[in-house]
C-alpha cells in the first residue's frame, strides 16, 4: 500500500471534488481516495496505481494536477 498526494488546481466547488474523487477511485489499484476542496489535495492510497493514470483521471474531470507529493 502506498500513499500519494496530488495537488489539484481549478477545483472550486464541492461537486468538483466529488467528481475528482469518483474519477480517481476508478483507477486500477486505488484503494481509497480523499479529495479536499479546501486543501486542493487528493490523498490516494493504492496498490501500484500508476501516477500517469491518476493524472489522467483528474484531467478527465476538467482539472489539472500541479504537483505530486509522495
Amino acid at each position: 500500500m502506498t500513499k500519494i498526494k496530488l495537488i489539484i488546481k481549478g477545483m472550486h466547488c464541492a461537486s468538483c471534488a466529488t467528481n475528482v474523487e469518483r474519477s480517481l477511485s476508478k483507477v486500477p489499484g486505488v484503494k481509497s481516495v480523499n479529495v479536499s476542496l479546501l486543501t486542493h489535495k487528493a490523498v490516494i492510497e493504492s496498490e501500484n496505481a500508476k501516477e500517469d493514470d491518476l493524472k489522467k483521471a483528474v484531467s478527465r474531470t476538467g482539472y489539472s494536477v500541479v504537483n505530486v507529493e509522495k
Partner: protein
Amino acid sequence: MEESIEEQEINSWRIKLIWGWALTIPIVFLMYFGKLTGIELMPEIAMQIAILIFAFPVIFVVGYETLKGGFKGLVGFYFNMDSLISLGTVIAYFTGFLSIANLSSDYSGISAMIMAIFVAGKFIESKARGRASQEIRKLLELGAKKARIVKKGKEIEIDISELQINDVFVVRPGEKIATDGIVVKGQSAVDESMVTGESMPVDKNVKDNVIGATINQDGILYIKATKIGKDTFLAHIIDLVEEAQGTKVPIQKLADKITGVFVPVILGLSLLTFINWYAFAGDFGKALGTSISVLVIACPCALGLATPIALMVGSGMGAKRGILIRKGEAIQTMKEVKTIVFDKTGTITKGMPEVTDVFALGKENYLLEVAGSMERNSDHPIAKAVVAHANLKHYKDVKNFKTIRGKGLEGMIGKNKVVIGNEGLMKEKKIDLKKVSDAIKKYQSSGKSILIVASGRELLGVIAVADAVKQDSISAISELKQDGYKTIMITGDNEITAKAIAKEVGIDEVIAEVMPEDKAENVKRLKENGMVAFVGDGINDAPALKESNVGIAMGTGTDVAIEAGDIVLVKGSLEGVVQAIRLSKATFSKIKQNLFWAFAYNVVAIPLAVAGILHPVVAEIAMAASSISVVGNANLLRNKRI
C-alpha cells in the same frame, strides 16, 4: 516566495471580477437607463446588438474557464457547479439573437449579469476561504528563514534550506530557533507556545531537545541540528492538520450524496420547468427565463462546503493551541462521549516517579544494592527511579533476569533468587509480608507505589515510589466533571495507591491493578454503557486509544505519537483535554448550523425558482450569498473562546 494555490485562485477571481463588472456595468446602464428615464438612447435593435457585443467577453472570456470546466463535465458525465452556470449563461446569451428575430425575450444582458455576480461571489468566497486557512498558513510562516552556523569557530549566516543535519548553529536571545535540534552549549528559556500552546517558557540546558520555530528568550544557545526540512516537528504538525482537514465527518455523508447527484437532478428539473411553463403558459420567453433561474439558483457549493470549511477553521484553531484533530470523525463522536478514561502514569501524573521512602528490615544499603542492581536491567520508569536513588558505584552481577509484566522482576544474585515487585508477586512466590504490612499500608494510602524486595525467600524491605500529579490535572478534571463527564482512572497500581491519587485529583472511579495489555479490554467493557474517550500517552496506550470512541493522545515535548490518537495534544497537559472537547463541540455545532442553512436555502430557493417567482439575477445573487454565508459563518467560529 511562490504564490500558494489559494493566492493564485484569489488573484484569478479578482481579475475576472474586475473585467466582468467593467463590461457588465455598461450593459446594466443600457438595459435600465431607457426603462427608468424614458429617454431612448438608441434604437432597440442597436441596443440589443451593443449588449450582445459587451456580454460576449463576459461570458466567453471572463467565463472561459468556467465554461471549459462546465462543458467538459457535461460531455464526460462529470457534472459540476460550472455545468449549471455554463448552461444558464450560454442559453441566456443566445436568447439575444432569438429576440432580434422576435422569437424570445432577451436575456443576453442578464447572462452577463449572472456571470459577473458568479465571479464576484467566487472572489468573495475564495477570500473568506483564505481567511479560514489562515491559521495553518501562520504555522507555515513560523519557520525561520536564516540560520547562523558555526564552522571552524566562525559564524556564517546561511539560508535555512542549506542547513544540514549535524550542523551546529547559534541562536541569540529573541531569535527563532532555526530547526529541531539538541542543545550542545549554553542555556536559556525557550518560548514554545507557538507549537505547544504552553505559555510558560521552557528551560533548556545542554542535551535538551529544542523545536524549530520556537523563540529563544534570554541566553545564547548552540544547537546541533537533528531534523531538517520535511522531517521537523513543525512540518509534521502542518502535514497532520492538512491531512485531517481533508478527512470526512460522518454528518457530511448525506450532503455529499446529495452533491453527487445534485447537478444532474437540477438539469432535469430545469428542463421540466421549461417544458411545463412552455406547455401551460405558452410563453417561450418566460419558460426560458424560469428554467435559467432554476439552473443558476441551485447551489451544491454551500452544501459541500458546510462541513469541511468549519472543520478547517476548527482544526486550525486547535493547531494554534497545540490540539491536533487528526480525524474529522472525532469531533462528531466527541459530542456523544459521556465517560472519559484517563491513564494514570504520564497522563494524570508526571510519569517521572521518584523514590520517597525506603523501609529496610536489615541494612538499608544492602537493600538498595540488591534493588539497584536488579532494576538496572529494566527500562521501566519506576526501575529508573530506583537506580537513580540507589546511586551505586558497583553493581552486583545479575543472572537469569526476567521481567514479569505488570508485577515485577526476578533474577539470580549469587546463589540467591531475588524477587522485586508488588504484593501479588510476593503472594505467588509465597513470601510472608507480615513484617512490612504496616509500612505498605501507610505508603499506599498516601498514593505511593510500593516495591517489595526479597532475596532467597527472605524479605529485605519495601521501597516506596511516588509519581507527582501534574499541576493542572486537578483543575482540568474538575472542569470536566462540571461539564457532566464521568471520569475514570485506569492504572496498573494497586487499589489503595490508585484511590489515593484519584482522591487527590477528584476522579470519580478507579480501575486498578490492570495489566498494560488489558487496558483496551476495559475500555471495550466501558463502551457498553456509552461512548468513551480515552486519554493516554501515545506509546504504551496505543491499543486502548484505538479501542475507545475518541482516543486523545498526550504528546511529550518534542515527540508526538502521531499515529495513535484521533486527537493529539502536543503539550502533555490535561487542560488540553478540556480545550479539545470544547473545540470539538463548537466546531460540530458550526457544522450543523452550516448544513441547516445550506439545506434550507436549497429547499426554499429551488421551488421558488421553479414557480417562476425569482428573476434569474436575484437567483444568482441568492446562490452566491448562500456559499459566502456558509464560509463566513465558519469563520465566526474563531470568535469563540476555547
